[in-house]
């Protein structure tokens, strides 16, 4: 019995220790003023995590918007409320689907790649040799990736929402015959910029920080073997997805929970 409790205690200590290390890691990485060189490195990473993820995000957004319109229409038409289709599509995308799905896709597409890349740099001693040259790899390797992820994911989320709403319009208005004026009109009447658009963006900023943080930390802290890299990549996707979904609940409760 005492052994069990001791085991639990050790587990707790390890978890706290890991979180502490990850927090120190984050602090050391983002501290310091950006230099011209840093901006160049950041641009490069923006290209890698942002531009390269654009295609998958936009295609997914389009399909999700179209499916939402199709599903929503069959339900709303029973109540004679198909005019509210635009409102339904826009609110579901802005508040929930765009931030969450974009973050999950981002974790799979960019997060795992970040982990593998940093892990490989560690395995081939590139990080160590950088340290020996007198350059802090946290600043040089980790910081640009963190900042790029932090900026790229909200932008991708915006793209996801826009193309999803457009996709919903495509199905709802062009195909199912909802009146175009009421699609946009109802949307505009019910979507509030601060409550819906801005809150969705805040969510996606939080997700961006968490996903990129997990990805680069897993890469930085992994055991530098081929097995270690594959495990860390898997962990990135699993931890990041769980963190996104869990945080989504917390954020939703905070933002929309007590709307009277």
């Amino acid at each position, binding site marked *: 019995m005492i052994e069990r409790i001791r085991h639990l205690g050790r587990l707790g200590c390890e978890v706290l220790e890991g979180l502490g290390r990850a927090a120190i890691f984050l602090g050391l990485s983002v501290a310091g003023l950006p230099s011209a*060189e840093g901006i160049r490195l950041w641009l490069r990473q923006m290209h890698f995590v942002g531009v390269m993820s654009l295609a998958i995000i936009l295609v997914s957004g389009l399909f999700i918007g179209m499916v939402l319109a199709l599903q929503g229409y069959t339900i709303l038409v029973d109540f004679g409320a198909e005019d509210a289709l635009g409102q339904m599509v826009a609110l579901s995308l802005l508040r929930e689907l765009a931030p969450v799905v974009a973050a999950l896709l981002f974790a799979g597409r960019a997060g795992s790649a970040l982990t593998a890349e940093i892990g*490989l*740099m560690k395995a*081939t*001693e*590139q990080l*160590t*040799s*950088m*340290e*020996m*040259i*007198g*350059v*802090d790899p946290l600043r040089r390797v980790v910081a640009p990736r963190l900042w790029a992820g932090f900026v790229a994911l909200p932008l991708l989320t915006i793209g996801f929402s826009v193309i999803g709403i457009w996709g919903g319009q495509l199905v709802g208005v062009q195909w199912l015959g909802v009146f175009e004026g009421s699609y946009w009109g109802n949307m505009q009447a019910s979507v509030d910029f601060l409550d819906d658009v801005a809150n969705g963006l805040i969510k996606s900023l939080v997700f961006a920080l968490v996903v990129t943080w997990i990805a680069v930390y897993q890469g930085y802290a992994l055991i530098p073997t081929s097995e270690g890299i594959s495990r860390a990549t898997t962990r990135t996707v699993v931890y990041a997805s769980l963190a996104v979904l869990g945080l989504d609940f917390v954020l939703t409760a905070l933002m929309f929970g007590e709307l009277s």
Partner: protein
Amino acid sequence: MTDSPLVEVEGLRFSRGETEIFRGIDMAVPRGKITAIMGPSGTGKTTLLKLIGGQLTPDAGRVRIDGQEVHALSRKALFGLRRRMGMLFQSGALFSDLDVFENVAFPLRVHTDLPETMIRDLVLMKLQAVGLRGARELMPSELSGGMARRVALARAIALDPELILYDEPFVGQDPISMGVLVQLIRRLNDALGLTAVVVSHDIKETLSIADYVYVISDGEVMAHGTPQSLDVDRDPRVSQFIHGEPDGPVPFHYPAMDFHADLLGTGGPR
């Protein structure tokens, strides 16, 4: 002051988990000489280099470089000290996203504000020294192992360091590139007056260039001296290592129970 050793290691202890890797190491690396650290694989030679470079912190003991105690320095001062050190890694550790030229230019760009033409001249000089001036536009993935190590050497000497640490420079090299590397290390030392620490278990090559040798085994300094004195050392452990005899005080077999009893299955569960 200039006669004092550049690197001093005193009573260094280090353990990883439960295993004790070093149980009190003392050594001194004289200025302008090549000092070799040798020992059977698995004795933590690379770990010793990392301790000297300040990447690991010892449990006890001190490492002093030019009078500064490495592990008492702030992060900033440590990075400053490392500018005066170069390190050649076993794998080369070239930055895979930069080409050969940019790899060698990297330390210059980071630590100096030299104009572009000056950086170009310096990089070409260093590449010329390792014979790879023509390969400046290649990416690290296009280089052979020996070439990668030579580029890494050019990068390590880009800032004209006082101390250069070589981690297993001869491992996995064909005889030609091995010969090239041996010659390069010796020549750099003679021409630039560098202090060098070579960690290796390639006895012949190492003994041919080293001025002084430390042999490490079981976490302690087993023997030290000039290559000539070690060659005639009568300690059986030293002579086994230096002359590469398969069995001796360092056993060929991993510790195990009696072979006969093991075969008959009388000694234990499996």
